């Protein structure tokens, strides 16, 4: 069983909701990422999504776009991102880390090389925004051969039949995009999330986490009631961008937000 599946099994046993948290590797400065990852775990993050910077992050809202731009300004690459996970694994062997990004850096590295290096670094899974199931076949084979989970998105526009297909390609968990739009958008509609999660929940046994548009303890609580977990990202990237360049301060800015949301989730 993969580290991600183990984590969700444990959360289920404990009756707790998963808190999945996204930051961009190398944002705002390279040195901040590792301490921030450890801080997130300390404050109750269950799964870390480490963003791989890309020049054309077409599913991101302005906040995370700027995170990618800041990281790219100091040349942060996919290889660097794996190196950070390797460092992280020196002191943490239990928290799942998945890489989230876009197809092209993975294409450039080569699927087989990617899977080999990612597994060696201690990465647990991959979410590529622009690799839907119909284009993922050869990468999927490589990921599976290294026991890496392939995380897929479900959207408000996804029809049931397709959701069933996606679930069959996926492992680890499914990520439901709570709204039509980009990351960090502000128009979360809890009722529509509820309806879609009920529809999709009947199609799969995979855990379902909800992201896009969750910005505080209140919105996290509302959504967590309906799902196995929540994903936060823009709210963290925004805080990090305002915390200066001192790694400890950057990590602390994330820690405070995580702390509040964790508490809210545990008090449901």
């Amino acid at each position, binding site marked *: 069983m993969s580290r991600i599946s183990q984590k969700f099994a444990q959360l289920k046993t404990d009756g707790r909701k998963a808190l999945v948290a996204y930051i961009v590797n190398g944002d705002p400065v390279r040195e901040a990422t590792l301490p921030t990852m450890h801080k997130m775990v300390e404050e109750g993050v269950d799964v870390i999504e480490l963003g791989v*910077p*890309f*020049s*054309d*992050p*077409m*599913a*991101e*809202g*302005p906040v995370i*776009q700027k995170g990618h*731009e800041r990281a*790219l300004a100091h040349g942060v*690459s*996919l*290889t660097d991102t794996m190196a950070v996970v390797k460092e992280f694994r020196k002191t943490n062997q239990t928290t799942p880390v998945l890489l989230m990004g*876009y*197809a*092209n*850096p*993975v*294409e*450039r*590295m080569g699927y087989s090389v990617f899977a080999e290096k990612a597994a060696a670094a201690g990465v647990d899974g991959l979410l590529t*925004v*622009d*690799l*839907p199931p*119909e*284009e993922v076949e050869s990468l999927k084979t490589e990921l599976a051969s290294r026991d890496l989970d392939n995380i*897929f*998105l*479900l*959207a*408000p*526009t*996804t*029809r049931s039949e*397709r959701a069933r297909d*996606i679930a069959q390609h996926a492992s680890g968990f499914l990520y439901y*995009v709570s709204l*039509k*739009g*980009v990351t960090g*958008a502000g128009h979360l509609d809890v009722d529509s999330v509820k309806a879609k999660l009920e529809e999709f929940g009947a199609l799969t046994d995979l855990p379902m986490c909800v992201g896009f548009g969750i910005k505080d303890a209140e919105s996290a609580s509302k959504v967590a009631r309906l799902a196995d977990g929540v994903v936060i990202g823009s709210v963290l990237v925004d805080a990090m961008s305002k915390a200066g360049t001192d790694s400890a301060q950057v990590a602390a800015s994330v820690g405070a937000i995580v702390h509040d949301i964790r508490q809210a989730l545990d008090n449901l």
Partner: protein
Amino acid sequence: MSDSGKQKVDYSAFPDERGHFGIFGGRFVSETLIYALDELQEIYGKLKENDEFQAEFDRDLAHYVGRPSPLYHAERWSRELGGAQIYLKREDLNHTGAHKVNNTIGQALLAKMTGKSRVIAETGAGQHGVATATVAARLGLKCQVYMGAEDVRRQALNVYRMKLLGAEVIPVESGSKTLKDAMNEALRDWSTNVDDTFYIIGTVAGPHPYPQLVRDFQAVIGREARAQCLDMTGKLPDALVACVGGGSNAIGLFHPFLDDESVAMYGVEAGGDGVETGRHAAPLNDGIPGVLHGNRTYLMEDENGQIIETHSVSAGLDYPGVGPEHSWLKDLGRVNYVAINDNEALAAFRKTTRTEGIMPALESSHALAYAEKLAPTMSKDQIIIVNLSGRGDKDILTVADIDGITV
């Protein structure tokens, strides 16, 4: 793979059902957009075979755009060059001044069929934005056009044209502030407003079915040129030349000739300061296959897979990718992809203006510059058709600026 050009390919069978041209093309988008693409593919699949739809498209092209566009024998210029006879396919004479309108007429009809009340577009030089704003005005659709902030500055005239037509131009400040960033922003908008918005993509790139449907709408260029050439000269041309940014005017000219084995084809990319300098926009000359904007195609990128900035005097060619069908035709060896640098294109702009009294767009000037090199290597009874894809009025300020003149 480039030595496989002699194998028999059924070009009409591509893209396949999932939008692939060999390894290229496809549908690399976030999940939210899949439904809209499925819907578009289904509607287009039906309408493509629908006589009424085709008749309406043809009627609009005839009475609104002014088609067929002439095929003009550039006699004086041909004589001067002393080689092949150069014929210009006059897409610059279309309503709005470029080939772009062929596609926006077609996609606007699709938008009407889907019942969406709003259209969005990305634009580089502004020609596609103008062509979109034009059809939106005619159909009473709300229109927003994304344009890189750098291009807004370079193409002020077209920005104002779009505003006069009732469109809102949204400058895009992210990334390199050019066409690729405008396309990112348009895709973000579409994800957000997918229920009521039709995205009119301006070139043969993007996720399936866009490369196919834009090609089909632009193929009127090649169908006309083929018939006109046969009519005027009694034979097929020996060579076709067209500029390639995303590649819609080129595929439009080339596609109806792909089965004519005697017809050589040259796609001309923007060489910027010269392909060898790295400062260019020529992914087919100096790129590698990758994934951007919904399809797999040749891209300009660094060793980490990050898309790099492009350079060209022509905003309409300033794009790091290219339509996937071009990538496929390159690897098949069916089309030769060459590059013309900024200076050569500017010289061709002046030359065509002075010799034939036709002021071409800087994009089209790249094709003209290559024809100028090609013609003298051919005999006087041979024929080159150059796609004069747009008129140069929009570029006058750019050229004046290069000349150090304030207009």
